[in-house]
């Protein structure tokens, strides 16, 4: 139980936070872990704040509730920080990872009560430069794996490659750019 990692994702409807949580669950599953990936279903609309969750453990996970004391918080859209208490219940031993071109120190005032670490990653820049479109998912995943250490980086890269090969079987040209986005995210997360 003590080895269970809990992650909470904050995004806006349509940005793919739910998909990202499922992709992370899938990658962790591929490394032999027990996983849960689930969104909190509410009145869903494009652009409305949404929350998704992951539990990852070496042991069977029996708890079925939302996550209130996450080890890691992922903020897919930085404008949410003004709207949602992203640090609510977050453990000081963990971190908050924000999709932003800004420096982590720029967020210290905005999340004043949080004692853990803050990291940023410019997922927009990585996404636009590799995929040519704004899909923050993939870079955010890379950042979470890097910061949380939930699985070895090379194992994660292999799992993502397998997943993309399967997912994009009919459009193989997007596999390499997605892999590039994953690898850049592992290097470019700041904190």
């Amino acid at each position, binding site marked *: 139980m003590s080895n269970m990692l809990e992650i909470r994702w904050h995004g806006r409807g349509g940005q793919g936070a739910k998909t990202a949580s499922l992709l992370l669950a899938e990658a962790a599953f591929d490394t032999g872990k*027990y996983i849960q990936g689930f969104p909190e279903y509410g009145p869903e609309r494009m652009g409305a704040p949404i929350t998704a969750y992951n539990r990852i453990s070496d042991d069977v996970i029996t708890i*079925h509730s*939302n996550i209130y004391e996450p080890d890691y918080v992922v903020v897919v859209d930085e404008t949410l920080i003004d709207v949602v208490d992203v640090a609510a219940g977050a453990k000081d031993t963990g971190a908050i990872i924000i999709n932003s071109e800004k420096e982590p120190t720029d967020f210290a005032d905005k999340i004043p009560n949080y004692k853990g670490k803050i990291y940023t990653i410019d997922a927009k820049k990585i996404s636009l430069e590799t995929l040519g479109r704004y899909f923050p998912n993939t870079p955010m995943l890379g950042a979470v794996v890097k910061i949380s250490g939930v699985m070895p980086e090379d194992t994660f890269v292999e799992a993502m490659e397998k997943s993309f090969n399967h997912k994009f079987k009919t459009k193989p040209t997007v596999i390499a750019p997605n892999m590039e986005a994953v690898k850049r995210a592992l290097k470019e997360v700041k904190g």
Partner: protein
Amino acid sequence: MGKRDKLSGNEAVAIAMRQINPGVVAAFPITPSTEVPQYFASFVNDGLVDTEFIPVESEHSAMSASIAASAAGVRTMTATSSNGLSYMYEMLYIASMSRTPVILNCVNRTVSGPLNIHCDHGDSMGARDSGWIQVYSETNQEAYDNLIIGTKVAEDPSVMLPFMNCYDGFITSHSVENIELIDDSDVKKFVGEYEPAHALLKNTCAFGPFDSQLYYYEHKRHQAEGMKNAKAAIIKYSKEFEKITGRKYNLFEEYKLDDAEIALVIIGSSAGTAKFVANRLRDKGIKAGVLKIRAFRPFPFDEIGAVLKNLKAIAVMDKCTSLNDAGGPLFLEVRSALFDQPLHPHTVNYLYGLGGRDVKAGDLESVYMDLIKIIETGETGNVHRYLGLVE
């Protein structure tokens, strides 16, 4: 050999349906059960099953078509939730009285109103006396397994009753978790062919005729016998299932009850959270246990009474309100089951998780703490309690 995978509850159930390859699937979409016929329709489209898929115009028609197909002599399945089940009501009773072993995946969602799409057990609990076997699942794995086992239970010649495979909307239906799938060939071997003794396409018989005062009562008696026999059938097919999967099931699950002094009696996904909490309490030396209901219909009346009688205090958890000022459906039956026992633990009822109210580990821990207080004071106190309610 099974295959390790990660799936949502709805995906897992649709896969079990593909492996079983029923003769007819008739369904109408409603959240959160929609994905079941949706995935299944893609299996039909891809030629992975040879099922006759009937996209009917309502749940009433879904159940009517299912009864007719089952009466014709083929294995028949459907899925629904909430008001979809409400709309089937008339036909639910006819399915069970016609002794047509239709399989219904009931993805639990509260019933309107007020309008809410989230989980509680109000939909299937409302149908608890309609003559359907009801089995509830804690996990995606159980939803998948129970569908396969349930198919055999429903079709057993001593039973011949429809089967409701109940699992929690969103919490189970839409969450991705680890699961072990059984090989297609092993599932097919386990369920075998459906060969009813009486079927419209097989021999001369009638389904649904007028039943006068001369025989109606006797037919209801036969139906009750089928439900009684379902208990032995659930145990029998669960044991056969264990032989191929190693996964052990019974009428209910006794989790750390052997030496327990306090326990929660609970249904569905929250049973997993209760186990998590019971473990945490046992680390502190508190003898906590969980009794998880699997079969609610037939209700394991004698068995539950025998297991619970030695505890000091129990909390019966109802994720469904009866609005009767007497207690939830599970509470009333559990407490009644204890009446015939020589010993009676303090027994209280908690209403919880209505309309998708999240059930936190801390909530369930507070219930165990309440039970400890009851033992310490010797006072049962208020029997009807609310958990997680903002007042």
